[in-house]
C-alpha cells in the first residue's frame, strides 16, 4: 500500500501520452503515491514547451502518440545537456519490444510495458531517479 506522505518533497513530472484518460489516471495515482505534481501533454511540441517553462524533474513518455512518435522529441532533448540529463521513463504498450541499450543514449533510464507494469515498481523507480524516496 502506498500512501501520500506530505513531508516528502514534491516531484514535478511531465507525462507525455496521447491517451489523456490514461495520463490523467496515472497523474492521480502518482499524486496519491508520492505527492507528485504532474503535467500531462499529448503532443511533443507542447511537451517541449512545458519542459522549457516548468521545472520538470522527470519525464514519463509513451512512444506511440497517435500518428506520431516520441523518438523525435527524445532526439531533440538529447541535443541539449540539461534536457539530456533529465531522467526519462518510457511507459508504452510496446515496452517489451524496446531495449534500454537502444534508448539509453537518449537519457532513458527505464522502460515499462503499459500492459504489465506495476505501479509500485514505477513509483520506486521515480523515487530512485529523483532522489525523492525516503
Amino acid at each position, binding site marked *: *500500500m*502506498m*500512501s501520500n506522505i506530505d513531508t516528502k518533497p514534491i516531484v514535478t513530472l511531465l507525462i507525455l501520452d496521447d*491517451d489523456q*484518460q*490514461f495520463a490523467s*489516471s*496515472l497523474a*492521480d*495515482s502518482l499524486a*496519491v*503515491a508520492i505527492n507528485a505534481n504532474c503535467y500531462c501533454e499529448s503532443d511533443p511540441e507542447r511537451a517541449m514547451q512545458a519542459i522549457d517553462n516548468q521545472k520538470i524533474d522527470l519525464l514519463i513518455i509513451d512512444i506511440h502518440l497517435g500518428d506520431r512518435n516520441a523518438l523525435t522529441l527524445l532526439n531533440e532533448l538529447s541535443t541539449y545537456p540539461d534536457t539530456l540529463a533529465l531522467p526519462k521513463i518510457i511507459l508504452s*504498450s510496446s515496452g517489451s*519490444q524496446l531495449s534500454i541499450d537502444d534508448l539509453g543514449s537518449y537519457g532513458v533510464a527505464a522502460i515499462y510495458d*503499459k*500492459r*504489465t507494469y506495476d*505501479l509500485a515498481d514505477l513509483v520506486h523507480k521515480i523515487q530512485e531517479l529523483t532522489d525523492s524516496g525516503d
Partner: protein
Amino acid sequence: MSVEGVDFGSVALTAAARDLTAPLVLLRQLSFQLDGQLATNESPATRQTLQNLRTAVGRTFNIADQLRLALTDENNLVLEPVQLKGLCHELNSELKPLQRELKCNLDFELPRRQPVVAVGNYQALKTILNGFLSDAIRYEGQCHQQDANRRIVRLRVANRHSGDVAIELHDDGPGINLARSLEAVMEPNNVNPTVARPLMGSLNLLLADRLIRAMNGRLTIHNRRRGGITIETILPTSHQLTLLEAIR
C-alpha cells in the same frame, strides 16, 4: 467502402485485437488509481478484487495476442535465438498474480550454469507458454481444491543430446480428449458435458501447434496415467552462444 484484394475478416480481427490494447491498458491503470484512492483501512478483500481485475485484464491481453498471432502468416514469423531462462523468469513474474489468486505455484526446472537457447519467435513462444501455464494453473486448482500445497505446475527446460531443446509442462488437471475438445471448439453452442478440459482456451493449442511447426519444432501432448497432462514442446537449439564462447 471497398478495398480490393483485402481479406476483410483478417484485417478487421487484427485491428480489433490491436484496438483492445488501449481500453485494457486504461482499465489496468484505473485499478491502480482506485487502489490509491481507497482509504488505508479498506479491507484486503477489496484490494484483492482490484488485483483480480488486473489479472483478468492480463488474460484478455493474452487472448488478443493469440488472436493477432493466429492471423499472422506463419511464413513471416521472425526466428531468433530465444534465451529460455529469461523467458521463464518473465513468465513467472507475469503469472504471479494468477498464482496468488488461485493459490498454485509454478516450479521451473532449468539446467544450472548452462544456457538454454532455442531458435524461435520470442513473442509467439511467450504467448503460447503463457496460455499453457495459465490453463494449467486453473485446472490444477480444480484438481486439488482442498489441498493448496499440492497445487504445483512444473515446467522443465532441458538441452537434449539430439541437438534440440525440450520444454515440458506437467500438471495434475483433468486429462484432455483432443477429438472431443476439437468438436467443442467447432460447435461452441453444442456444449459437450463429457469434455472435462476444453481445448486450452479454445485457440491456444491449435495456434501453438501451427506456430511451433513454423518454428521448425513440434508439439506433443499426452495424458498422464495418474492424472494430468504433459505438453512437450521441442525446438531447435540455437548455437549462437556456443559460437560466442568459441570466439572468446
